[in-house]
């Protein structure tokens, strides 16, 4: 008789699942030499801990607080009456920027959820996700043409048409995302992580060029079907436009439905289990491959919905929109704490506000640099984000 091989418990091979969260700092994630730190090093660690806890919040509050004070003290030009500039000293202007930012952020939130879901389950930055969103925009604009939606369509027709567009777009982008996973990521599941990341970048470029061939290389304007800029009502000088209501009207139900799906259904539980520990999940009889496909399906569907809202809201589409939106949404997902759906929504809204403020106050040409500056700041100060949980260490 051969001696039977000892049974190895999967837990034994894992890194400690969750370091002491009361420490709650980024410092716990660093790999430091074993020597006990000297006094200056300890002081540095304390500074870093402090910066990690508060630095991000200070950095996030900096822009709105600065411009709020600026508006109150220096005032801003609210209009021109009889040749004279009217200077106001209130926060209505800031409020308008923030309202616009939040509604923009609702779109980023929908995309960011896709990043966060995928990262949570297979720890891959799905670089192609932003381009799936772009394909979503292109598909929905194409579908408007198919359904004959135009500026003259009546309210009822528009509602049903857009609803049908939304559903079909979500199916298309969801299927596209599943397809990408099947072709480009699944064969590399056991390869080094770099490999899958590189195919993700490759697919991002392929999709961009599909978009380029589909609708040409320059931004195209699309019909403003719902008159997004029309003000619906005004609260305290802040104008709430139709576009804002649209963005939140699509985002909130979808996020609630997603939360219900993840927390209340059997498939959702399988997703959470796989995210926690794929090996153990498989031992419990969960079909891990199907669960991962399902995750990509959900992420792709949300990206498709975001694509439709983006096309309606911005009234122009471009093959490059996905790349930019993807980076912004990824920043949002990291800011909220990657792997965390609520964090992605929060991060999306915050990034939206930052972006709107940078657009309005510094000029849109600097927005990208500001957003990426924030991305780097988050990485330095608090890599696990605002609501971040300690994520499973990658093998």
């Amino acid at each position, binding site marked *: *008789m*051969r001696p039977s091989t000892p049974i190895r418990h999967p837990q034994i091979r894992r890194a400690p699942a969750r370091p002491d969260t009361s420490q709650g700092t*980024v410092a716990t*994630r*660093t*790999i430091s*030499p*074993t020597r006990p730190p000297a006094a200056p090093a300890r002081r540095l660690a304390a500074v870093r801990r402090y910066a990690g806890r508060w630095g991000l919040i200070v950095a996030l509050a900096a822009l709105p607080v600065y411009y709020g004070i600026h508006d109150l003290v220096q005032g801003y030009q609210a209009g021109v009456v009889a040749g004279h500039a009217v200077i106001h000293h209130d926060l209505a202007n800031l409020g308008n920027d923030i309202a616009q930012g939040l509604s923009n952020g609702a779109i980023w939130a929908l995309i960011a959820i896709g990043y966060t879901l995928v990262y949570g389950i297979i*720890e*891959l*930055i799905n670089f192609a996700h932003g381009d799936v969103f772009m394909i979503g925009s292109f598909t929905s604009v194409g579908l408007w043409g198919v359904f004959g939606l135009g500026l003259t369509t009546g309210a009822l027709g528009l509602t049903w048409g857009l609803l049908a567009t939304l559903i079909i777009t979500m199916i298309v982008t969801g299927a596209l995302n599943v397809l990408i996973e099947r*072709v*480009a990521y699944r*064969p*590399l599941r056991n*390869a080094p*992580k*770099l*490999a*899958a*990341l*590189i*195919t993700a*970048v*490759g*697919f*991002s*470029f*392929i999709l*961009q*060029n*599909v978009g*380029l*061939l589909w609708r040409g*290389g320059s931004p195209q304007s699309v019909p403003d079907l719902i008159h997004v800029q029309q003000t619906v009502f005004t609260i305290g000088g802040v104008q709430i436009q139709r576009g804002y209501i649209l963005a939140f009207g699509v985002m909130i139900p979808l996020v609630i439905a997603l939360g219900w799906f993840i927390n209340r259904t059997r498939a959702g539980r399988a997703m959470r289990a796989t995210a926690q520990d794929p090996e153990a999940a498989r031992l419990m009889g969960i079909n891990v491959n199907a669960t991962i496909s399902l995750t990509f399906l959900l992420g792709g569907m949300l990206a498709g919905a975001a694509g439709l809202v983006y096309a309606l809201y911005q009234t122009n589409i471009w093959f490059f929109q996905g*790349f930019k939106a993807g*980076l912004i949404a*990824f920043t949002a997902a*990291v800011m909220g704490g990657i792997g965390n759906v609520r964090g992605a929504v929060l991060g999306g809204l915050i990034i939206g506000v930052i972006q709107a403020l940078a657009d309005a106050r510094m000029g849109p*040409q*600097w927005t*990208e*640099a500001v957003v*990426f*500056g924030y*991305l*780097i700041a988050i*990485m*330095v100060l608090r*890599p696990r984000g605002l609501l971040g949980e300690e994520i499973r260490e*990658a093998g």
Partner: protein
Amino acid sequence: MSELRARLRRWREAVEDRLPPRWNRVLAGVVIAIGIALPFFFPPTSGFMNATIIAVAYAVMALGLNIVVGFAGLLDLGYVAFYALGAYSLGWFGSGFFFKARVHVLVSPTQRTLAGVHLNFILILAGAALICALAGILIGLPTLRLRGDYIAIVTLAFGEIIGVVAVNGQSVPVGGGMTLTAGNLGISAVDQPYIPGIGQFNLLDLRPWYWLILAILLFVLFVNLRLRDSRLGRAWIALREDEIAAVSMGIPLVKTKLLAYSIGAAFGGMAGAFFGTYYTVVNAAQFQFGFSIFILAMVIIGGLGSIWGAVVGGMALGYINNYLIPDVLNNFPSHFGLNFQLTQVEFGIFGFLLVIMMLLRPQGLIPERRRKLELTAKIAAEDAQLAEVPGTAPGPS
């Protein structure tokens, strides 16, 4: 399939046995000799020479990125930043862009009469390497505590920020009515290299340019080979393979990683400075994210971590990008009734190459020895395992 592969391997081993010892050094010498003599076989301004010069410069960049991605295993998606900084070093220190200044160091008599900062090209080359090395450290610092894919994002963000600054630098004053960059207009009329004793370069004769970039390539290649076999090179590879184990063996994490970033960046800067003078304009539109991926594709197609792979990958994609796609295959889709040109979708083609390469031959065209051993050793281990199963099935019963 595996039988065929084994037979091929046996053949190759048999051929290698019969070759004289150190045959690959002889081969390298022959290749270099052919490389030096190459321009004599082509007209001085032919399109092929142009494509070759660009391809060699790409190879220099690929060698630089290979240090960061291939040796140290830090996925850098913002390498275009060093291209930009290298090119701007040339734009700043080798043109009339800073028109208020009058600085001339070792330049030709005609350049000496011009306004602006004019340094000798070799000095600019060294300066570009230095600036990029510092920038590399700057980019490396925040990524030190991060894991693989986060590093990719931070470097990408840095690359994009540099790109945005390059585009908007027109509105950044640096005093005296001068601006930081010329944005999308580009810094034009940059100096052509002038080497005392050799003379002034111009674009009517591409041969000196070719020898210049070939010399840079050989220098970078030499540094790369020496680095790979040095203590530092082994430290990079150790970090790539297992960071925790490497650190506990006493490898200084911060220093080793930062050196990888800065040395890789320096080579990118040198190639960038060369491109600046060769294209005669430093234009912010050159510095797109796609270029980072383009260079990454060279490294991956050549074989991550493989020096000769980076050279071959850089040259191959250089020719594909500057000769094959625009000159040879550009109208290929129209033969099938498709209404586009291949130059429009070149990045899609590179993306496709990346995906195919990763799926079919992840080790690249010329795999690094270590990686190849790893892969074949794994196959051997699997074969042994498979052989074991039928052996144990009858069992001792």
